[in-house]
């Protein structure tokens, strides 16, 4: 028997989210979006509750969560850094920028620094190809980023 622990407020919130979608199994992806918006990520406990509320198997929920790259089971850093790996950014040096972020923060893609401050992810085309290569930190977009700019961008958020 799997045992999970979750704060009551979170359970209530999840129940409310599921209810707002009529507890329909076919609304799973919408529910997951909402839940991730609310909690920042989708830990196992959250998936268990969603499965129970939507009356689908938790294996199914997990299968869906792991299919879509937008969903994450680990919390992102306080400042999530995303490097665009769209083709336009790639040919204008996006990969080098990514390597530099990885090197300077010493974390691989998809993970968060030990202090919880930064996480690195790749994304596919923000549609700002005119600014390639593009890096986003949270909502903020940095365009025409060069390897040399990486340290400055990190510094901006380090204080």
């Amino acid at each position: 028997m799997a045992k999970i622990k979750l704060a009551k407020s979170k359970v209530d919130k999840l129940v409310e989210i599921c209810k707002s979608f009529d507890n329909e199994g076919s609304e799973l992806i919408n529910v997951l979006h909402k839940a991730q918006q609310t909690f920042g990520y989708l830990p196992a406990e959250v998936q268990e509750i969603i499965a129970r509320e939507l009356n689908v198997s938790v294996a199914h929920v997990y299968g869906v969560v792991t299919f879509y790259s937008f969903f994450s089971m680990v919390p992102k850093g306080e400042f999530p850094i995303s490097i665009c790996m769209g083709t336009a950014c790639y040919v204008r040096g996006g990969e080098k920028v990514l390597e530099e972020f990885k090197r300077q923060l010493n974390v691989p893609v998809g993970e968060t620094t030990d202090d919880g401050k930064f996480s690195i992810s790749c994304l596919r085309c923000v549609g700002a190809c005119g600014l390639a290569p593009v890096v986003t930190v949270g909502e903020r977009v940095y365009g025409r980023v060069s390897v040399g700019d990486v340290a400055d961008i990190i510094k901006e958020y380090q204080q």
Partner: protein
Amino acid sequence: MEKYKMHILICGGTGCRASASETIQNNLQEALKAKGLEDEVQVVMTGCFGFCEKGPIVKILPDNTFYVEVKPEDAEEIIDEHIVKGRKVMRLLYVDPEKKEVVSDSKHMEFYKKQIRIALRNCGFINPENIDEYISRDGYAALGKCLTDMTPQLVIDEIKASGLRGRGGGGFPTGLKWEFASKNKADQKYVVCNADEGDPGAFMDRSILEGDPHSVLEAMAICAYTMGATKGVIYIRAEYPLAIQRLKVAIKQAREYGLLGNDILGAGFSFDVEMRYGAGAFVCGEETALIHSMEGLRGEPTVKPPFPAESGYNGKPTNVNNVETFANVPVIINKGAAWFKKIGTEKSAGTKVFALAGKINNVGLIEVPMGTTLREVIYEIGGGIKDGKKFKAVQTGGPSGGCLTEKHLDTPIDFDNLIAVGSMMGSGGMIVMDEDDCMVSMAKFYLDFTVEESCGKCTPCRVGNKRLYELLNKITEGKGTKEDLDLLRNLSTVIKDTSLCGLGQTSPNPVLSTIENFYDEYIAHVEDHKCPAGQCKALMQYVIDPELCVGCTLCARNCPVDCIIGERKEAHVIDAAKCIKCGTCMDKCKFNAISIK
């Protein structure tokens, strides 16, 4: 709506917003207020102008002045000089890079000259959050015409006659698709708009939704009318917050006006639209995968037939079209199939929007008639290759397309021509590469994408693409052999031949087309263990020419891994074992002493 003497249009596309176009809008409004002109000059945030390279863009009407690369601090000057004093701000005008001349009016810019904007007709022209502006430009007139004057079959016939083909990649005749869906009887049918633009480097769908959301809603309603559907779903990438926001506003306004909902325009036709969010899976661009995703499942494709037109969303007849396809529909109805058919080539009517990017001067979103040549697009509209480098290849069709070369430049672009030369239209990504781009690495880049985006359902795509990637990786690391090229070819052919869906059926295209067009480059990698473009790290070495090095130490100080050794004023040496080949030293050296060997 007040009647203004002047309009200032600011690009509110994602690219320009990333460069603070919202702040520019605010500053302009503040500056107008300060001069007491807020009732005379209207400031409008529009959709994308397309010329993203030079964003943010501010356009002033009626004199059509086109300001580029505007910064928030320029707002006051624009108001003071242009609006009040009637003098153009020269430093913000576009300078033609060839002729070195100022061009103040977009109509006279090379970038816009060859463009015909149908799908993008309202982008950069109207305020997408104002339905009135859409209506004033014949918005919903096509829907009205269909509902009032045309039978569903007549509408289908019109679309068929127009020659419109699916702009999402497949190029399937839209009218035919509608007809299939209309012929299947069911108690419920669905119209789905595929706005899950996943092609890296293509952003036309997002631009249309951000700049002209009503055109898509109107077209969906028209489609629904032809097939007898009452429900529409827009499946949109969750990563497109602005497009989602604009659509939400548009749907709300359309409902308020009764252009969505029950008994539209008193014609007894009811239709409404809701949104579903994609969650980051390229394969969901495939319609059966998309439908599964809409149903809350893993976005895995299923074997066709049955086609969605027979059994789609919730098992009901469903018609799926992409955003750009829909955006063309109202114009076709308003202006007639014959008008549309005249544009473009015989088998590919109309225009196509391309996202022009890569090593090109004018990055941006363009719409050209089918049949325009690659050369016109790259050299005239695109302004040629960046930094005076040499053109090497253009990749069309995104990860499923192929790399075309110099010899293909005069190919008129249309669905069939691109396939004939080993590439495809795809959703319209067009990435230009120069002499510094290694074609093996390019193929590897695309395969990396496909491997990551494969759903894993069928063997050739799940395992085959992985093996393709591994072979390419081996080659870029200098460990490949000539036999590997044969393996690449056979595997590519089999993956294309046996994969379940369009993703796998096209994923080897970048490999096949680069082997075909850049065979020498592959041979250089596997036989000479050299990367001619100097991009494959394992096959290159940074060296300092002791003759040219003056010992300024700049490179050593900037080296991130401290692998450059040397005394001040003496020639430096790079420790190849420690070098991570980041290229910083070469960028920093002022004496051209560092080169790639």
